């Protein structure tokens, strides 16, 4: 899976790699595991609901620590295409 070679603690790198990771993943658990492997990540939570567009969307809420001690909160939104395929949609501030 792209971007999974070495975890890093840089939120910028995480942001850069996320689209490729989401597009290549075969399950939501796979995406969650990849995010969680980054040292900056304090928590990852898959929102329990489905956003009911066609295709539907799912949100991951990510908390990531930065070098200045603050915590950045982001929402990763992906399309659930079916047949174990996903597509990155957006990464926005929470």
């Amino acid at each position, binding site marked *: 899976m792209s971007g999974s070679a070495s975890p890093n603690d840089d939120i910028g790198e995480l942001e850069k790699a996320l689209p490729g990771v989401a597009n290549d993943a075969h*399950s939501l*658990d796979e995406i969650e595991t990849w995010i969680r492997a980054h040292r900056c990540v304090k928590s990852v939570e898959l*929102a329990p609901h489905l*956003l*009911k*567009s*066609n295709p*539907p969307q799912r949100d991951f809420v990510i908390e990531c620590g930065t070098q200045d001690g603050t915590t950045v909160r982001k929402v990763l939104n992906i399309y*659930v295409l079916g047949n174990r395929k996903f597509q990155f949609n957006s990464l926005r501030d929470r």
Partner: protein
Amino acid sequence: MPDIKKLEALPAADLLQELRNRHRTRFFLWPRLNGDLRDFGDEAIAAALIGSQKLIYGIDDRSDVYQLSPGPDLDDVDSAVALFRAAGVADNGDGTSTLRTVNFGSEQNLCPGERFREQPTGAFCSGVLVAPDIIATAGHCVNSGNVTDVRFVFGFRMRDATTAQTVIGNREIYRGVALVGHQLVGNGSDWALVRLDRNVTNHRIARIRRTGRIADGQAVHVIGHPSGLPTKFAGGAVVRDNAQGAFFVANLDTYGGNSGSPVFNSDTHEVEGLLVRGDTDFVRQGTCQVSLVCPTTGCRGEDCTRATEFAELVPLQPGS
């Protein structure tokens, strides 16, 4: 040979949970599986689940527009729109456009017997006319980055049991030009108001609730494009959780593509909210997929952003 009666005796919620847990074990997580169901395959559990759901819920409440009788329900349909990407609408050069659609059954790998599987699908969200040039929809459907790429289409519906209206007069197709307002909060308010390129003069403007809140247990119905299908009307639902400020929860039969669908009060025919979030749509049964209709207490319900969240940005209409 496993005893099928054991399956039939279990609550639908337990069967549903078992299928979900099995799905998760195929990847990384290892939730606890139900030992009583060890001897049963996914297909048998899914079949028992569907059977038990039908006992609990009766039939799927969705119906096509041509099946509705003249009256207020059909009037409500007149204000609903389908959202297509610009690339999904091909101008024929003769005053009409053809909607780009695919076969629903093939697209979703649906099992034989699934409703509407032979119909076309193409809409990515739903919406409702709330002012002459304003459409209300979900905030996760339209944003400042894509608003001008969205086409709002009236009349994408089944004409009869086998014929879908996919060639649409251009006068029934509108382009988004700007956001009037927008909000997208993860587990909260989710709405967008879109300014159209021109006024709509030949469709009903839906009345929206402007103050107060819907009653607990109120009957509601939804009109939109489940799974991107031609317009569907779904009633037989009630408000089952009214505690949240920004949204209420109802047991509506909705699918991906219903986002932005108007949720009407079945007594007053006012728009009470917009359908935005809910539970999983389909579950695998053997090599194909079936609808997962939830038992009353087994699922989270469908979230509907309250119309009062955006009402102040919608101009009052004459007579409303």
